[in-house]
């Protein structure tokens, strides 16, 4: 992929995350902090489908942004054909793994399996 497309995704995911994390924080401010962390209140978030979907999107945005950022740091730290291939595919793998694990949590909590 062209580097400019990757970086557009990087900046786009950052902007998207700012917007959605703002909504997330505003929602949390409807209760006081300790209340928002109570078990039934946390579970209730996941049962609200639009909110659970938003959390899923935040998860995707930040996994893509964070691991691409890490990829950039590692590419600048050391060079080499094999090393760079490893970093590029490794980051995609790590993104996918984190998204899969996070989605599993969101799904299980949403279906009341925890």
């Amino acid at each position, binding site marked *: 992929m062209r*580097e400019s497309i990757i970086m557009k995704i990087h900046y786009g995911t950052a902007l998207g995350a700012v917007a959605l994390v703002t909504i997330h924080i505003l929602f949390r401010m409807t209760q006081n902090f300790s209340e928002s962390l109570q078990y039934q209140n946390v579970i209730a978030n996941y049962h609200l489908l639009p909110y659970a979907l938003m959390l899923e999107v935040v998860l995707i945005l930040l996994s893509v942004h964070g691991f691409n950022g890490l990829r950039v740091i590692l590419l*600048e730290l050391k060079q080499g054909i094999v090393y760079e291939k490893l970093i590029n595919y490794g980051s995609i793998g790590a993104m996918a793994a984190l998204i899969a694990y996070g989605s599993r949590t969101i799904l299980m909590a949403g279906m009341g399996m925890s």
Partner: protein
Amino acid sequence: MAVETISKTPEVSLPISSDSITLRISRFNPKNDLSPIFAEFKVPIQKWTTVLEAILFVKQNLDHSVAVRYSCRQASCGSCGMRINGKPALACYTKISELNSNIVTVEPMHNFPIIRDLAVDFKQMFANHKKMKPYIIREDSEIASDTKEFLQTPEEVEKYLQFSYCIKCGLCNSACPTMATDESFIGPQGLAQAYRYVADNRDDGKKERLKIIDQSHGIWRCHFAGSCSHVCPKGVDPAMAIQLLRGYLLGFRK
């Protein structure tokens, strides 16, 4: 770091001078040495003595084996870049008197392989410069008979003029924090030259150049430290060139 002190005093008759400084020169031959050492010399100076003149005084009178590259002595050829009291600068364009110090330390530029002492290897920088296709690309020509020169308005010239002042001294690359770890990075010198031609309305090579810089070790590895523009002795602003080039790649500029 070990310090070798060579306390040779000049034997020749010197120009009248009341002042002298200690010039510390980093000595390193990668073929024989494990790490650089500093050699110290007492050098007489006058108000107008440049760092390059002080080094050449050492070569003429105290130790001819010091390796330094220079040519024009007037900030035109781009040969004499080095670290002077820690800061990247041209030795021929830095007066001792402006350093406000009795001890002047000269070291080779960072981010370049050292050939010997103060002389560094420009191979990679010149290769990156060439990769940017640093010439006007277009079908027709202004030198064939029955053609005319390509006229430009002052405004059109202004768009790229400052970037054409680059003398390929490498000081910007030596100051760049990305270059310190990413040896494949094109660097501010090359990127500023890519912009110099992209912004020239006589040129048709924009697409080609944008493609070359849009690589994993290309323009996106700049994180806007701005040190390149800070050290450039010719008033070129490579950091700005990079941001303007990004404008094309992100679709803000046509």
